[in-house]
């Protein structure tokens, strides 16, 4: 090999070949030749480099710059700029330094930096078709060492000591397996490699075969020497033509050089290899089925014992390992067992390759030391979740594996820890899932796979998996039955206990594990016919509507707006959500985050459309009401005039009741009036919409405090038959620090309430707001508007973890609110009995907490002090149960809010219902509205027995839609906000769109609700 100035390594793994690596390679060679660089620059076609989704990829050495998503046309630019002029082509580079455009070198890219490559040591570095390149990387040195210096028992001892375990899935000690096979009686023994790799998404074996086939040949020859076998078979699926081709060539090259065949390297050891191609039946990855298939029979497992080590292929002692296991052997022999065993955990040594897939930024093949935290793998190597999505679970181990939810992100990835959580290491398939994955659906997917791939020999697998699939099918289709979850668990456990082979014994795992960690989602599918991820077609009319807690018919009202039928649009909206004008301003629009349009360009701007719609309202059109004299006479009450209470009263009124709302404050609206500032929600809008509800016959009595003016007992005495408690979570949680009572320290909720109800509140000069939620932002922006000199929001994590709505944070920043991330108050410093400064502690991010976010970890070295004469704490809210429950003891949930039946809001006393923040803890307006509706229906059922609920049957709107037309193109218009310079007082920041913008936007809707 002549030395060259520059080497271009082009990945020609299967993935990159499929996306055009060979064309790229040809173009690169041509571009180099054109510039007369062929003397100094060499192009190599290597095996897989790992970041497969970014393919085709190429590396330019010695700079170590990785280029991604290359088209043949890009070869020109790389040749001209980088190879000729030495300038990195930044826009093609795989990863840039954060905050700059500078390309990161291979060693700095987090995706590579945390990997340890043993199995994949040569993949992406050498040309798999050149045995010289393998030899140049110490190839066949391990074989030479074994044949010249080591006895077979010594080889086995070395493998045993290394702690290497079978990488095919079961994790049996490789050394013990070799030893058993050596000890087995028989003159003829076989060394077999399982390259059947059937797990969906796993392709590490293919990568080794394609990128470094000699490592397998060398390892199998060593294994043959160790167990006393002279014939090996590689069983590889026919779907891997490139792997078969390269391995075939490698075997030929090895034979030519005497590295396979008789008397290898002049020793007494003779060994040869044959490739046997399988037709890609998943079950043929099971060792006995694999051997049956090599024998030429239908690939079906046979009972064990006898184990293959004693009676395997053609009833002869046989050693079977998978590709990845073998590929680790040469390094173990050369560098020693203790080197290998220095990586990993106590029981799981070395490295493991994972096929990282799903919702992470960096997908592809990665090799990590066993025992790395799952979160590290997902967030550091995987680069974290794609834009705006949160980690939900990782599915590990393919169809035999299970899922790991976010509160276990700290789990070390090793055999034992994964099994403990109901997953397995398996062959290393790792699919990262975000909230758009339905756990019922994904478990059905895996079960469907094994159900199809079952060989059909034993009853539990053949019939049992089918029955499980049928149950899952009906759950996904909304036909789930009470007891289905238990049926799945019982049947799944029985299949595990009774099936003939590993396939059947692990087939129920994905389902059992999904039930274990995400039981609630199964319950929702069965009980509520709800798929929260918006995936199951029969349960999801349109993803936006599905995402709306209140179930507003979004495509319906959007298309009505498009036809300028505003009254009908609004009426349709108020079928499920009366507070249209309020929500058009304050809703955090979960609908938009599920909008399918985002797969095309950007989600529909649903809230802005709603804003445009409510602006068109001339006068209230009362909704459809049931006239029922009997209902009207019954006494029903609502406690709390927040969104939940208002919603409940509205729906009760529509069912013919005349509910009374008791409100503790002087003005109705709850958090809408007490917490949300007027610049977000003008008060006339609020009053107008509350007035609409009063017009339906709802009576609101203010300044009536539960526990002070009346009690649950007294209500009962007054003859109320049913009551809805929507008292909110009015108490700030407090910082729990010394000096909290000092003047200048206040709770965000108190601060906001005082201002919003009385029109004035003391504001400091230097205001420090502690917290990262919406209350913190509201308090900060209010303080700023009330004349605070400076307002800083301190949050103990980073911006990415903030629960506040992103738009609000951005506007606050634009208005001048400062942010101090990774900082938490530790001490309040007073001067003359007043707050003067706050000692802050620097935080770092550590392990993952139950919410899947990294925990803030204090760094005592980094303390600093911030001057502050006012501290507004916004770190959570609580219920005041003792003050309100008088004489009636209601059960609380584990978060100390009122425990209710999630279907109808019924509390532990049958006549008491609850919802909103009082039951769910601080939640959004739209969630509270939904809770009010549920409780209204629940109270109606309690009082009158369940009748038809008119608004719950979905109806198609009669708007025009041409399903065959192409989607209307167009970009999402921005929000219409008044400039910061004009935001002095509490004038509304956002204004409505013009008709042109709004009507154009409606056309972008894809009408997912359309069914023919």
């Amino acid at each position, binding site marked *: 090999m002549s030395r060259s100035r520059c080497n271009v390594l082009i990945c020609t793994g299967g993935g990159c070949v499929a996306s055009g690596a060979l064309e790229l390679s040809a173009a690169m060679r041509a571009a180099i030749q054109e510039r007369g660089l062929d003397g100094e620059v060499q192009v190599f076609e290597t095996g897989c480099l790992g970041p497969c989704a970014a393919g085709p990829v190429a590396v330019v050495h010695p700079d170590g710059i990785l280029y991604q998503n290359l088209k043949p046309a890009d070869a020109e630019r790389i040749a001209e700029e980088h190879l000729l002029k030495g300038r990195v082509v930044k826009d093609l580079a795989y990863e840039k330094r954060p905050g700059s455009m500078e390309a990161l070198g291979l060693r700095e890219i987090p995706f590579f930096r945390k990997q340890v490559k043993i199995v994949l040591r040569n993949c992406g570095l050498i040309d798999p078709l050149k045995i010289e390149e393998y030899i140049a990387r110490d190839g066949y040195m391990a074989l030479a060492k074994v044949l010249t210096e080591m006895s077979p028992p010594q080889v086995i001892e070395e493998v045993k000591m290394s702690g290497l375990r079978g990488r095919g899935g079961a994790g049996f000690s490789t050394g013990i397996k070799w030893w058993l096979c050596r000890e087995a009686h028989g003159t003829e023994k076989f060394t077999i490699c399982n390259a059947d790799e059937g797990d969906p998404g796993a392709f590490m074996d293919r990568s080794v075969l394609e990128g470094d086939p000699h490592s397998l040949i060398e390892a199998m020859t060593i294994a043959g020497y160790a167990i006393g076998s002279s014939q090996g078979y590689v069983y590889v699926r026919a779907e891997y033509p490139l792997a078969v081709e390269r391995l075939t060539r490698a075997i030929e090259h090895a034979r030519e050089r005497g590295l396979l065949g008789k008397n290898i390297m002049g020793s007494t050891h003779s060994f040869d290899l044959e490739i046997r191609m399988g037709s890609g039946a998943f079950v043929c990855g099971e060792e006995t089925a694999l051997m049956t298939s090599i024998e030429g029979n*239908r690939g079906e497992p046979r009972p064990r014992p006898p184990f293959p080590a004693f009676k395997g292929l053609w009833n002869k002692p046989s050693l079977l390992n998978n590709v990845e296991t073998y590929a680790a052997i040469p390094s173990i022999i050369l560098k020693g067992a203790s080197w290998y065993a220095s990586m990993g955990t106590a029981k799981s040594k070395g490295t493991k390759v994972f096929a990282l897939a799903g919702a992470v930024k960096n997908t592809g093949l990665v090799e990590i030391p066993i025992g790395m935290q799952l979160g590290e793998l997902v967030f550091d190597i995987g680069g974290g979740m794609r834009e705006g999505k949160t980690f939900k679970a990782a599915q590990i181990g393919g169809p035999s594996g299970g899922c790991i939810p976010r509160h276990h992100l700290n789990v070390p990835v090793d055999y034992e820890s994964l099994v403990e959580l109901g997953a397995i290491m398996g062959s290393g398939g790792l699919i990262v899932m975000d909230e758009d994955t339905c756990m019922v659906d994904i478990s059905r997917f895996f079960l469907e796979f094994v159900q199809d791939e079952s060989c*059909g020999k034993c009853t539990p697998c053949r019939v*049992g998996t089918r029955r499980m699939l049928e*149950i899952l099918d009906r759950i996904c289709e909304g036909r789930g039955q009470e007891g289905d979850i238990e*049926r799945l668990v019982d049947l799944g456990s029985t299949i595990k206990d*009774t099936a003939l082979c590993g396939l059947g014994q692990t087939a129920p795992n994905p389902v059992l594990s999904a039930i274990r960690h995400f039981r609630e989602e199964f319950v929702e599918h069965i009980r509520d016919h709800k798929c929260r991820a918006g995936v199951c077609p029969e349960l999801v009319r349109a993803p936006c509507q599905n995402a709306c807690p209140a179930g507003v018919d979004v495509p319906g009202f959007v298309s009505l707006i498009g036809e300028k039928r505003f009254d009908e649009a609004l009426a349709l909206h108020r079928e499920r959500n009366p507070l249209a004008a309020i929500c058009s301003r304050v809703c955090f629009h979960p609908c938009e985050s599920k909008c399918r349009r985002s797969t095309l360009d950007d989600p529909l701007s649903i809230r802005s459309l709603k804003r445009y719609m409510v602006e068109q309202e001339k006068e209230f059109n009362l909704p459809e009401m049931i006239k029922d004299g009997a209902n009207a006479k019954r006494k029903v009450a609502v406690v709390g005039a927040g969104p939940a209470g208002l919603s409940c009263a509205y729906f009760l009124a529509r069912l013919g009741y005349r509910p009374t709302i008791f409100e503790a404050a002087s003005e109705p609206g709850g958090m809408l009036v007490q917490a949300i500032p007027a610049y977000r929600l003008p008060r006339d809008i609020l009053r107008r919409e509350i007035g609409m509800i009063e017009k339906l016959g709802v009576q609101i009595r203010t300044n009536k405090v539960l526990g002070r003016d009346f009690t649950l007992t007294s209500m009962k005495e007054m003859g109320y038959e049913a009551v809805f408690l929507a008292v909110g979570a009015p108490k700030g949680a407090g910082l729990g620090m010394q000096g909290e009572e000092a003047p200048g320290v206040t709770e965000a909720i108190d601060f906001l309430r005082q201002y919003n109800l009385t029109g004035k509140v003391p504001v400091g000069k230097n205001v420090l707001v502690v917290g990262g939620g919406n209350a913190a932002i509201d308090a900060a922006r209010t303080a700023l508007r009330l004349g605070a000199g400076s307002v800083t929001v301190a949050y103990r994590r980073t911006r990415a973890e903030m629960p506040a709505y992103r738009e609000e944070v951005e506007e606050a920043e634009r208005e001048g609110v400062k942010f101090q991330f990774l900082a938490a108050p530790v001490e309040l410093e007073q001067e003359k009995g007043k707050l003067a400064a706050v000692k802050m502690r620097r935080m770092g991010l550590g392990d993952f907490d139950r919410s899947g976010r990294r925990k803030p970890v204090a760094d005592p070295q980094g303390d600093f002090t911030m001057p502050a004469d006012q501290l507004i704490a916004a770190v959570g809210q609580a219920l005041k149960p003792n003050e309100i429950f008088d004489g009636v003891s209601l059960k609380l949930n584990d978060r100390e809010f009122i425990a209710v039946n999630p279907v109808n809001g019924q509390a532990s006393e049958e006549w008491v219902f609850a919802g909103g923040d009082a039951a769910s803890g601080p939640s959004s307006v739209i969630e509270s509205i939904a809770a009010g509706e549920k409780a209204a229906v629940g109270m109606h059922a309690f009082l009158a027995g369940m009748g038809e609920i008119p608004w719950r049957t979905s109806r198609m709107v009669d708007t025009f839609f041409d399903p065959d037309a192409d989607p209307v193109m167009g970009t999402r218009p921005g929000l219409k906000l008044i400039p910061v310079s004009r935001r002095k007082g509490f004038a509304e920041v956002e204004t409505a769109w013009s008709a042109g913008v709004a009507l154009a936007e409606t056309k972008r809707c894809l009408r997912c609700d359309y069914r023919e």
Partner: protein
Amino acid sequence: MPSLTIDHKTISVADGTSLLEAARQAGFHVPSLCYLKKVQAIGSCRVCLMEVEGAKTLMASCVTPAFEGMKVHTNSARVRAARKTVVELILSDHEGDCQTCDRNGDCELQTVARDLGIREITYPGSKSIRRKDTSTPALVRNTAKCILCRRCVTVCGNTQGVAAIFPQKRGFQSVIGPAFTSDLSEVVCVQCGQCAAVCPVGAIGENDETAKVWAAIDDPKKTVLVQTAPAIRAALGECFGLPPGTLVTGKMVTALRLMGFDKVFDTNFTADLTIMEEGTELLTRLKKALVDKQPVPLPLFTSCSPGWIRYAEHFYPEILPNISTCKSPQQMFGAVAKTYYAEKIGKKPEDIFVVSVMPCTAKKYESQRPEMYASGVRDVDVVLTTRELGRMIRQGGIDFPNLPDGKMDSVLGASSGAADIFANTGGVMEAALRTVYEIVTGRQLPFDNLHVAPVAGLAGVKEAAVKIEGTVREWAFLEGVTVKIAVAHGLGNARHLIEKIKSGEQKNPRDTAAQYHFVEVMTCPGGCIGGGGQPRLTTDEVRMARIAAIYKEDEGKPIRKSHSNPEVTAIYEEYLKKPLGEKSHHLLHTRYTARERV
């Protein structure tokens, strides 16, 4: 001799004994479906599960060898629940039309479900592929009832070496059947019915033709004759709960008369006739070879077993010239019934309806072969299996176990003991030797009680040699010749024997010094007593009991040699004139057709 504990009972068993056998030896009742002793142990149905201490999962006891010190539980809560679920799963995909199924009352699945106390199916659901194959005259397969135990696959592939059916497709869509889900008639199925004989449920059975027989009996224009094969009398009783090996010849005759058959005859009569013809054929071939030095196909193979004939036609067409041209006793009967007997009673062949009762499903096929119209019409109209006859007797309201004995009608009803033993492996050979030896030497066959012990019993391939000494003048050329014979039962064994003959030192089977002169092949293990139409389930114990009964019948007969049967003598005198004569050639002999292997 590992010693193990099963449910607190410690026992020692032979090396290699499965847990299932060990438990059964220890007196435990262990339910199972796919397991079939000596035939199949594959652990597929998972009904025989046991809990082995230390094992991660439950173990299928049929395939788990007993080890020293094992602690096994057959009746733990875990085992009971698992077995129940497994059987419920099987039932969930099973047709379940028990009341109208021909296995109603003798179905192994029914029994297992009953024993496990299953009262409902916890996991009902869709059904897998439903397909009924009625393409062959002999067998009906209904995948709706199949539980995929694979016993049929193993018997067809291993025992019979035919491999006409195997698992197709995967998972829940798995179905047992011929390749590419073709019909049985399109593949090499020899219609022996061994699949039906081992089926634990009603998925494979004979093509039921009982209605045709009732119709014929009820037709006043028809003279309805019935012939019963020798194997029936040792097995029919099992249809009525009598133990295997109970001889019911007399009750059977009475029952047939009560049912309304005009004449009750015996296939034994034509079995004796077969010996006359086939024995003569053997001697003729030997003479041609030894005296005339003509090339003659030897060894001579017997031809009574229609499954074997079809097997040879498909798999070994090259040996068809070696197979005796004699029709089977069933077909000889049909031919003489519609000619010789018809003339005697003055009826036209078309007015005579011949029913035969056979232990065999392939006989249904044989009776439909185009060669079997010697009388001008179809010689045998309907073939019933033993099981069908049992059903008809029930339908007739006949209290079989308490019937008095009846006697066969004359002139096609007399039988020698030699004819009886046609029913079991080695029997045709022994019957032939009894006659041939006596013809050649004038003396009785020099074996104890006339039994050629070396060819009796259940060994797969048996052989013997008989040295001929003291010949009569006509057969002097055989003086000192050692006649070598071989017997195979079960087509898998037949294949081994043929391959051995083909690869023998004397490759040319026409060579008189060939390994064997005369070879008997019976399609089914044990011979006709183990036929595919016999009461289920035929195990080796059952086979031995039936064989013992047959020998008892033989030994009880005053006449034990075919050539001594007076009615046989009579038919030659009155009608056929001599063995291998012109009439015999027309009525009693046939020809074979080479067929494709697939």
